[in-house]
C-alpha cells in the first residue's frame, strides 16, 4: 500500500501533467475566401497541434465559440486579404486568444504566429510570383478575458479553490478516524443516532469552514491581486456548496475506512496529489491525453477551478457551467452515499 500509491501517482501524473500544449482549438473566420486565404487555412489545419472547430462566416459566431470555451483562438482573415497583399499593402490578420489560461494562450498563439510567419516567408512568394518580395502581412493579436496575460489573475482563483478543497478533505478525512482513535465513536454507536444524521453532523461544520475560507480567499485575492470578478459571485458560492459537499463526502469516506489518523492522511494525500496535478491548474486539461481528460470528471477540484475561472474572469452564467454543476452534484451524491453506507455502527 505504502509503495503502490506513489507508483500510481508517478505513472498517472508523468503522463498527464506536462507543460506541452497538445491541442489548440481554433476557429477560422475566412471573409476573403480567396486562394491565398484557403492556402493559409490548409496550412494551419495540416498542423496536428491545431484542431479546427468551425469555419463560421461571421465574427460574432466565432466569438460565441470563444465564450463557450470551445475555441482557444479565433483567427479572422479580412475580406480584402489577398487583394491588399498582392498590392503590397500589408494586410492585417486578427487573432483573438482565449487567455484565461495564460499558458495555453501564449503557447497557442506562438504556434499560430510561427505558421503564419512561414506562410509569409515561403509559400506566398512561391505561389504568387507577381507579388513584390517586400509585401508581407501582419497579425494583430488580442488576448481576451485576461488581456495582460496576468498570471496571478489566472492562478489565484485556481489556487484558492485548490486550498479550500485541500483543507476540507484533510479535516474531514481526519475526523471519523479521530473519533475511532479516541474511542468516542464507541459511545456514539450505541445511541439510536442514524447513520445519515451522523454524516450530516460531520459535514455541516466543515462546510461552514470551507465557505468562510473561500470568502476570505476571494476577498484577499481581490485586494491583493485585484482579480477580476466579472460574473455573479453568488453563482460561485452556490456552486462551491455542492463542490465542498462532494469533497467532504470523499474525506469522510476515507475516514470510514482508515483505522488510524496516519492512514487517513496518507490516503487523503494520495487523492490530493492527483486532484491537484490533474485539475487543470498547472497543466491545461485540454493538453492531457484523452484518458486523463476523462479522469478529471470525478475530480471535484477540476470542476471548481473551471467554474471559478469561467465566472470570475469570463463572466460566465449558470448555463455555461451547467456541466460542472451536474458532475459535481453527481459526485456529491455518490461520495456521500458511499460515506453513509460505509459508516458501520457494528463490527
Amino acid at each position, binding site marked *: 500500500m505504502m509503495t503502490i500509491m506513489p507508483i500510481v501517482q508517478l505513472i498517472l501524473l508523468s503522463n498527464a501533467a506536462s507543460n506541452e500544449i497538445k491541442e489548440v482549438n481554433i476557429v477560422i473566420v475566412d471573409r476573403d475566401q480567396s486562394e491565398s486565404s484557403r492556402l493559409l487555412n490548409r496550412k494551419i489545419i495540416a498542423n496536428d497541434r491545431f484542431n479546427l472547430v468551425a469555419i463560421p462566416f461571421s465574427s460574432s459566431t466565432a466569438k460565441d465559440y470563444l465564450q463557450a470555451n470551445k475555441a482557444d483562438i479565433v483567427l479572422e482573415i479580412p475580406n480584402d486579404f489577398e487583394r491588399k497583399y498582392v498590392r503590397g499593402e500589408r494586410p492585417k490578420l486578427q487573432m483573438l486568444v482565449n487567455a484565461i489560461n495564460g499558458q495555453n494562450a501564449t503557447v497557442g498563439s506562438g504556434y499560430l504566429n510561427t505558421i503564419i510567419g512561414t506562410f509569409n516567408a515561403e509559400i506566398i512568394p512561391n505561389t504568387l510570383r507577381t507579388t513584390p518580395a517586400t509585401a508581407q502581412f501582419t497579425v494583430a493579436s488580442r488576448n481576451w478575458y485576461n488581456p495582460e496575460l496576468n498570471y496571478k489573475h489566472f492562478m489565484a482563483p485556481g489556487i484558492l479553490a485548490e486550498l479550500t478543497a485541500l483543507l476540507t478533505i484533510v479535516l474531514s478525512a481526519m475526523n471519523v478516524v479521530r473519533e475511532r482513535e479516541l*474511542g468516542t465513536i*464507541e*459511545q456514539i454507536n450505541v445511541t*439510536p443516532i442514524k447513520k445519515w444524521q451522523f454524516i450530516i453532523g460531520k459535514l455541516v461544520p466543515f462546510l461552514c469552514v470551507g465557505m468562510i475560507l473561500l470568502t476570505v480567499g476571494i476577498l484577499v485575492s481581490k485586494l491583493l491581486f485585484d482579480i477580476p470578478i466579472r460574473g455573479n459571485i453568488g453563482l460561485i458560492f452556490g456552486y462551491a456548496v455542492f463542490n465542498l459537499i462532494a469533497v467532504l463526502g470523499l474525506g469522510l469516506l476515507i475516514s470510514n475506512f482508515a483505522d488510524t489518523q496516519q492512514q487517513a492522511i496518507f490516503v487523503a494525500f494520495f487523492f490530493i496529489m492527483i486532484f491537484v496535478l490533474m485539475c487543470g491548474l498547472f497543466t491545461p486539461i485540454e493538453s492531457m491525453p484523452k484518458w486523463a481528460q476523462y479522469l478529471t470528471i470525478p475530480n471535484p477540484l477540476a470542476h471548481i477551478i473551471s467554474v471559478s475561472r469561467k465566472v470570475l474572469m469570463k463572466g460566465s452564467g449558470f448555463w455555461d457551467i451547467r456541466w460542472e454543476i451536474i458532475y459535481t452534484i453527481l459526485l456529491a451524491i455518490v461520495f456521500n452515499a458511499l460515506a453513509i453506507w460505509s459508516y458501520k455502527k457494528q*463490527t
Partner: protein
Amino acid sequence: MPAIVVDHIHKSYGDVIALNDLSFTVEDGELFGLIGPDGAGKSTLFRILTTLLLADSGTAYVVGHHVVEAYKAIRKKVGYMPGRFSLYQDLSVEENLSFFATIFGTTIRENYDLVKDIYVQLEPFKTRPAGKLSGGMKQKLALCCALIHKPEVLFLDEPTTGVDAVSRVEFWDMLKKLKQKGIAILVSTPYMDEATRCDRIALIQKGKILSLDSPDEMVANFGKPLYAVKTPQIYQALMVLRNAGFTHSALPFGECIHLTTNLSLNASEIRDYMEQKGIAVEEVQPIDASVEDIFLNLSQTAESQRQ
C-alpha cells in the same frame, strides 16, 4: 424475560478465543458483576451485548430484544460506559451531557432526578472540558451520560479502573442506588474486592465462567480449609508447601501465603511441618476465603486441568 440473557455466546479473534460458550442471565434490578483479569473477554462480551460486535455463535437478549435482529430497539434502552473514556474531551461537562441527552431525544431536565445525585458533584465543574477532569470525575460524568436517557439496563465496563479508592467507594454507592430504581446493571471489574458489592458475580477467565453465584454463597461454598501463612522466606516456603502432601494450593498473597489443604489440619501442624523443613514461620492462622482466593484457586484448577 430477564433483563439480560446470554445463551452460549462464542467469539474468537483469529486463533484467540475471547468468549467460550458463555451463558448466564441478569434479572431486572440486579447488580451483576463480571470479575476477571485483563483479557478475560469482559469487554468483548460488553460489545456484543451493546450491539457493537457480532458473536460467532450463540444468542443474546437485552431487555427482551435479540441483540442482532432488534439492535435498534436495544440502543434506545441501554446505557453503556465503555472501558475507555469515550466522551468528547473538548466539550464541557454540561455540553457532553446535553449532547447525549439530545441524541436520545430527551433533555437533561426530563431525567434530572435519575442523575441528580451524581450530577451535583459535577456541578462545580460544569464548564470545564471533560478531558481536564480527574479520573473519578470523568467516570461520574460518563455514568451521567449513560443514564441521561433513563436506560433499563446499564453496561459498565471497568468503571472503577484508574479511579482512586474514595471515588471507587462512592461509585459503588451510586450503583446501589440505581439498582434500587429497578435498573439492571452489568458491571465488570478486575478488582476482586469490589465483587462483594454485587448481587451475583461471575468469575471469568479466558472467556469461560469459572463460577457464578452470589459472593456470600461463593465464599461459603469454598469448602476447603484456608490458612494465612506469614513468613519472611516467601519463595522457599512456597516451594516447601507445594511439595507437601496435604497441600491443595499455596499462593503468594501480599506478604502472606494463602494455603488451602486437602486435609483438615490445625495451624500448629502446618507450622511444625514448615519449621522441620527449615523455614522461619511468623504466624499461621485459619482465615475465611475472599473472592480473590476463590478466583485464584479456580483459575489454578482450570489451568492444571487444561494441562
